[in-house]
């Protein structure tokens, strides 16, 4: 199968994959569909055509990551997602069986800069290698390592707060 020729055909082709990705981050099917629909409305408005890498799956994944993180940065949305969808299975990385639930992602979103969050999601939600992540985000492996260090520090701080409470 060839690449998508325009945003509408990319939606048909990649939409299900992107809904699954957003669902892993948000734990909510409805929000996942809304996020993906909104992304493609935007792409249609920009008249993005086939051959533009914005219609390639890895870049669409990145766009969905950022839209999901935006949603999670708001405390009310976060609360709503947790109340409505807490029983659903959270994202679990196959890399080290780490669970990245909505709550944890949201708490990280409060503490970390956008680039570090993107890197964390690539590695621990999308299970990408550091090399894949560096290529997609157009950063060096060294940058990945540094930002990952910040993310791990934030994770450790959250774990420390949970132990203390």
């Amino acid at each position, binding site marked *: *199968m060839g*690449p998508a020729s325009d945003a*509408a055909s990319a*939606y*048909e*082709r*990649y*939409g*299900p*994959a992107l*809904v*699954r*990705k957003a669902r*892993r981050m948000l734990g909510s099917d409805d929000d996942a*569909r*809304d*996020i*993906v*629909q*909104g*992304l*493609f*409305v*935007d792409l*249609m*408005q*920009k*008249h993005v055509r086939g051959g533009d890498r914005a219609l390639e*799956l*890895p870049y669409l*994944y990145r766009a969905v990551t*950022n*839209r999901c*993180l*935006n*949603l999670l*940065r*708001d405390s*009310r*949305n976060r609360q*709503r997602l947790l109340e409505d969808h807490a029983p659903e299975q959270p994202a*679990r*990385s*196959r*890399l*080290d*069986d780490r669970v990245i639930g909505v709550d944890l992602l949201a708490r990280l979103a409060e503490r970390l800069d*956008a680039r570090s969050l993107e890197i964390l999601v690539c590695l621990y*939600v*999308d*299970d*990408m*290698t550091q090399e*894949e992540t560096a290529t997609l985000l157009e950063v060096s492996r060294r940058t990945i390592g540094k930002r990952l260090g910040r993310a791990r520090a934030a994770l450790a701080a959250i774990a420390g707060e949970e132990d203390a409470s």
Partner: protein
Amino acid sequence: MSAGCAGTPVSWPRLEQHALGELPAADARAVDQHLADCPTCRACFDEARETIALPPLPQTAAPRTPWWRTWPTWTGAAVAAAALLLVIVLRPDGSGHRAGALPGPRVAYKGGELAIDLVRERGGDASLDPTRYRDGDRFAALVTCPPGDRWIDVVVTQDGRRDFPIAAARVACVNRIDAGAFRLTGDTPASVCVIAGDERPPRNALPGDGAACALIWPAR
């Protein structure tokens, strides 16, 4: 999944690309080899082949060239006069809704553009930037704001009553952030405004500077 991958897991984007038959042959063979030995990744691959029903996209998506850029500058005065006339002619229709007092759906804001776009969903069809609604129609609000972290809030004014159907949120502004969804009911005009600010917008002020609004009329 309860167990992790024993080796290096195949990333979700690669699994999805493999399910779509988009990986180069050599990469596809390597993924197949891994899947044969890894039940964890195989389960993920099965998930990647599941069918998902998608919400519809709007039927039409016309390019958004601002109308004033398509007009010769010498017509500016005439356009302004015509706009003033329209505001006078289309002034309040007895419903108490003052359309002329509202900011537009796109306004200059802090060196960029603040805009609200609505997607109306009705009976499985979606329309971009609708001007009409029927009782119970669902709308998704897409907000564009200048780059930077900002608070955004959506206010719907109808029958002189203001409603905040979507939680105010602090967002990293990009084009068309999905701000959330709401329904319109009744049969009176409604204005849907997005308010942006560095601080959480107060809910006791009328939309003015720092607001972009779309006006929706009830279906005839």
